């Protein structure tokens, strides 16, 4: 194959590789839960690493026979991709059974089925890419650039396809890409080597493509795993799918069935004057219920009198409201009916906003009911920036936090302080928290309010907070002004009428409280619950410690980490401590579902460490002779190669993940951030790699320049990015995307250099070193993703960026290039 054809095939295989990885993230979010996408990424990089290992063990053999391998791998990859899809679809893995202390063993086989199905795909992809690196090692900067640009194209293509195709049908795009590689390579092979093998490959590829497309496109899009809520909902009598949509953000269904009600926390004492909450639609994403969705204007709003969220409207009548989340549009109507004078409603993510807007137009086309509180798709940060807008009541809906992971930004310490500053005198911030399983998230929110008030100069936060609850939901109210004795008296009477429990108010005497909804104290660490003949309120006991004058157990001593989340560590639902892993595993069945992602990341770290050891030791053991024969005379090439490419593997992914997370705040969408960062980083680093060929004469200097730019950019990310984002978040989205791209461009351009210059310097030593470097880089990239997530929870994203900076700085010392200006002569590669 000509150089041009080889590069073209590399481009297409890279398109396939990243598009398949991105597809898998979407698929796993639908077929399992989105936390498992980290595992997917690790599987991908695992396969790439082993591809490099195989090449390291026999580089001469692969170089001699590279044309045959380049011919045979694409159809094999086609077959492997089809087999992978079939195994994915048929895999009976149940992540909930994995957490069951009796049934978990039955899931081990299913886990291995994922490895069996996916490993060959990524192994073959990694082998192909590594083989091209090996064959064209004399021009690594350009070769690596083509790889990166192909990956960028793959991400772009598959993300665009997600707007048109259901996740189960996305592999059809990838199969076409792979077929194009097969055709391209076969055409070249036929010209040089004759018809038999080439024709056979073409025929096999055509057969695979046909069968694969049939298998993929015939998959039912209503095939929902039986552990997902939607599975049983679809079977309910008279249930109807009222709407559906696909996007990179999810596979959405609107359900009309008689189990769908307004997500409102209600009294249990329905008198004659309190109706039941109204029927709604249910909005489901990837098989899980996200929120209720407005179905029609309720004929009877009397249920609001029994609603937990109604109290602020009682003590602050006719407020100007800011609604964060609308429970599918219901909150807008309810707020108007509760007497709101005016306001603004914000809904995130954009997909949910779209559904809500559509329903509002349908049921209230003349805006008779909703004109007073118009709906916008924006985050509170963009609206409240500059503290210009003021509200009497800022009300968070019960679904807002859980309906999208990106909404966690709205519950950081900085966000809560912003809300409090945006209140008028006497204004109230109202936040509901689910306490149906454990009350720890309620305590974390209380801590956040406490810290936010302290940060605003309030010396006695306890006088600025009210807390009351049902059995399943706690409502927290906060104000910059003290709640008055009249407010407290109203609360006590109002709650008593409705059998709500008052868990905190200024001056509360726990001994005198009559508890309606028993909530016994639980020691998660000891696995004990305190029983009593009298109803208890564990939430009250803990709120007294947090908000009272006699403060109790410091946060650091609690089993769960209840420190407020911040802009540096924004995940509200991450309360697990690394020091408590053993107990968490022992209580796996009962820990909140939100915390499973943390444990998954730990498991992936464990897996990655084992694999990194294999990648490091296997070539050294089996191929040591080959490596040693080609090692540089004197010097420490092997350790340098190891540390250099391991640092790059860590550092590149640390930076990429930190950018995705931070820009998800700026772009108000984790999906958009992922797409922008992925495409931006890959494109610009590809260009940077291409440009790095100019430094072949002095690679070390080229590296140092690149690292200097990376370091400066990372310092800006740590100190300057947050203020910049807060200042610009009010800009239109298109401008913000441009700002994000402009931020990424110089950093990404520089990021393309180290790998390109490092590998191009290896060509002068040994063919074995290039695929080994590729394998090391892949193995440590596997480790980087879960490690970055764990670090972000434990210490925050800024530390992840600092570590990336340190890692790139070490590359100046570990750079393996000693023979400057010497390019490998490769007689088998035409120019």
């Amino acid at each position, binding site marked *: 194959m000509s150089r041009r054809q080889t590069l073209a095939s590399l481009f297409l295989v890279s398109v396939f590789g990243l598009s398949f990885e991105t597809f898998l993230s979407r698929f796993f979010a639908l077929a399992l839960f989105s936390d498992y996408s980290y595992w997917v990424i690790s599987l991908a990089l695992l396969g790439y690493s082993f591809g490099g290992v195989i090449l390291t063990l026999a580089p001469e053999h692969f170089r001699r026979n590279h044309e045959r391998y380049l011919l045979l791998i694409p159809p094999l990859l086609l077959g492997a991709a089809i087999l992978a899809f079939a195994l994915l679809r048929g895999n009976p893995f*149940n992540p*909930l059974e994995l*957490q*069951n202390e*009796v*049934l978990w063993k039955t899931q081990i086989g299913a886990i291995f089925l994922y490895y069996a199905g996916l490993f060959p795909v990524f192994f073959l992809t990694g082998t192909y890419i590594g083989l091209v690196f090996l064959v064209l090692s004399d021009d690594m900067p350009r070769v690596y650039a083509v790889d990166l640009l192909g990956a960028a194209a793959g991400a772009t293509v598959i993300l665009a396809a997600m707007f048109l195709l259901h996740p189960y049908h996305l592999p059809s795009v990838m199969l076409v890409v792979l077929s194009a590689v097969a055709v391209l390579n076969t055409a070249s092979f036929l010209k040089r080597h004759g018809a038999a093998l080439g024709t056979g490959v073409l025929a096999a590829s055509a057969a695979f493509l046909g069968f694969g497309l049939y298998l993929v496109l015939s998959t039912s899009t209503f095939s929902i795993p*039986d*552990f*997902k*809520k939607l*599975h*049983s909902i679809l*079977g*309910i*009598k008279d249930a109807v799918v009222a709407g559906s949509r696909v996007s990179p953000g999810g596979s959405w269904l609107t359900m009309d069935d*008689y*189990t769908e*009600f*307004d*997500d*409102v*926390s*209600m009294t*249990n*004492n*329905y008198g004659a004057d*309190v*109706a*039941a*909450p109204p029927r709604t639609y249910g909005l489901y994403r990837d098989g899980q219920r996200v929120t209720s969705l407005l179905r029609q204007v309720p004929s009877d709003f009397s249920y609001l009198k029994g609603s937990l969220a109604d109290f602020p409207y009682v003590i602050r009548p006719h407020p100007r409201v800011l609604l964060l989340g609308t429970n599918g549009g219901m909150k807008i109507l309810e707020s108007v009916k509760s007497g709101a004078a005016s306001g603004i409603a914000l809904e995130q993510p954009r997909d949910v906003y779209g559904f809500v807007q559509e329903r509002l137009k349908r049921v209230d086309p003349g805006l008779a009911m909703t004109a007073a509180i118009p709906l916008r798709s924006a985050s509170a940060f963009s609206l409240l920036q500059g503290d210009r807008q003021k509200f009497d009541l800022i009300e968070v809906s019960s679904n807002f936090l859980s309906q999208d992971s990106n909404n966690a930004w709205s519950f950081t310490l900085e966000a809560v302080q912003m809300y409090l500053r945006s209140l008028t005198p006497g204004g109230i911030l109202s936040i509901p928290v689910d306490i*149906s*399983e454990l009350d720890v998230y309620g305590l974390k929110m209380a801590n956040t309010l406490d810290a936010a008030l*302290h940060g605003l100069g309030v010396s006695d936060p306890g006088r600025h907070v009210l807390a009351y609850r*049902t*059995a*399943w939901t706690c409502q927290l109210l906060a104000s910059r002004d003290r709640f008055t004795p009249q407010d407290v008296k109203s609360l006590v009477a109002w709650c008593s009428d409705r*059998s709500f429990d008052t868990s905190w108010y200024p001056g509360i005497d726990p001994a005198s409280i009559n508890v*309606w*909804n*028993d909530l*016994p104290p*639980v*020691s998660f660490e*000891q*696995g*004990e*619950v*305190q*029983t*009593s003949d009298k*109803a208890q309120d564990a939430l009250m006991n803990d709120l007294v410690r947090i908000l009272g004058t*006699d*403060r*109790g*157990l*410091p946060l650091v*001593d609690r089993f769960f980490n209840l420190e407020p989340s911040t802009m540096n560590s924004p995940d509200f639902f991450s309360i697990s401590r690394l020091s408590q892993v053993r107990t968490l595993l022992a209580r796996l*069945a*009962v820990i909140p*579902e939100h915390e499973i992602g943390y444990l998954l990341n730990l498991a992936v770290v464990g897996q990655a460490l084992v694999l990194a050891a294999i990648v490091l030791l296997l070539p050294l053991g089996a191929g040591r002779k080959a490596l040693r024969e080609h090692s540089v005379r004197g010097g420490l090439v092997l350790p340098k190669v190891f540390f250099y490419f391991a640092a790059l593997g860590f550092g590149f992914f640390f930076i990429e993940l930190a950018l995705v997370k931070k820009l998800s705040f700026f772009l108000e969408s984790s999906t958009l951030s992922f797409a922008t960062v992925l495409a931006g980083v890959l494109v610009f680093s590809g260009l940077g790699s291409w440009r790095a060929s100019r430094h072949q004469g002095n690679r070390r200097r080229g590296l140092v320049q690149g690292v200097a730019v990376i370091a400066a950019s990372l310092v800006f990310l740590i100190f300057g990015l947050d203020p910049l984002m807060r200042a610009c978040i009010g800009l239109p989205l298109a401008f913000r995307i441009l700002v994000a791209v402009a931020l990424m461009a110089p950093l990404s351009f520089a990021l393309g250099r180290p790998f390109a210059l490092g590998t191009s310097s290896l060509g002068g030593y040994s063919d074995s070193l290039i695929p080994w470097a590729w394998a090391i880089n892949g193995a440590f990239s596997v480790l980087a993703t879960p490690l970055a997530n764990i670090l972000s929870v434990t210490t925050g994203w800024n530390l992840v960026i600092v570590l990336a900076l340190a890692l790139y700085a070490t590359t100046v010392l570990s750079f393996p290039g000693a023979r400057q200006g010497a390019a490998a002569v490769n007689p088998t590669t035409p120019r």
Partner: protein
Amino acid sequence: MSPRMSSFVICALVICALAAAPLGAQKHAWEFTSYANAMSSSGRDPGSMSQGSFDIAQSRKQKYLDDIRAMLTRDFGTPDPAVMRAFEEVPREYYMYNYETGRNMGQSAYEVPAQEWKIGYGSVLTDYVMQAYMTAKAKPKPTDVSLEIGTGSGFQSSILSRIVKKAYTIEIITSLGDKVKNIFAPLGFQNIESRVGDGFYGWPEVEGGFDIILVTAQAPFVPPALLAQLKKGGRMIVPIGQPWKPQYLYMFTKDEQGKVHSQRDVATLFIPMTGQIQTPPPRPSR
């Protein structure tokens, strides 16, 4: 016909009538043939269940009852004899069937340790320890009338029916409910009434309401119709949590004033301790 012949015919007719009658009505010993007949009568294929696998399952039954008894003693002080009798009488293997795949799992009945079983359409047969706990928690009495929202396999309703006066059950998933409603009659459980429909409105036709309500289908709030149909002094039990995972039990009771109280029962997840849980002494304020 001679007297001898007529006596023979009469005896034969009686024997045939006895053989055809539902099992429970006669209190026959529960054997493989009874099981197979009942399965067929309910429209289900016994599948891989044979005499041998049936006997093996039965050999585990004593351990199953012992485990239930031990749990009830630990958590309630003494095992309710009515609950124990019900678990002895109701053949669990008869309910271990996946209605979506048609797979019979009865040969695994009385498994140790107890586990959940998929019965199709997203539904799960809860493990027997949890079911025994919920049954005991409900404190069923022979004068009670019970309502279950979420029939599932029908096992829980069947257990309750052996104790209470009448057991009503509603399944919201059509495919499941239409099949499960056929399983009670072959066992002779005449005091169970089932339907497929919207359980959140309860069973308003039952006058006087219910002493016991079990709600296994989740809602964001306790449906007011169910609270309205709960008698004063009655008990409503609502498990919260995902399938295959241990669940939190909520018990709602209605006092004489008609006000509702709730109790969160986590004894199935955490060891119950009376008295103060040890916590460090308070620290100085900020």
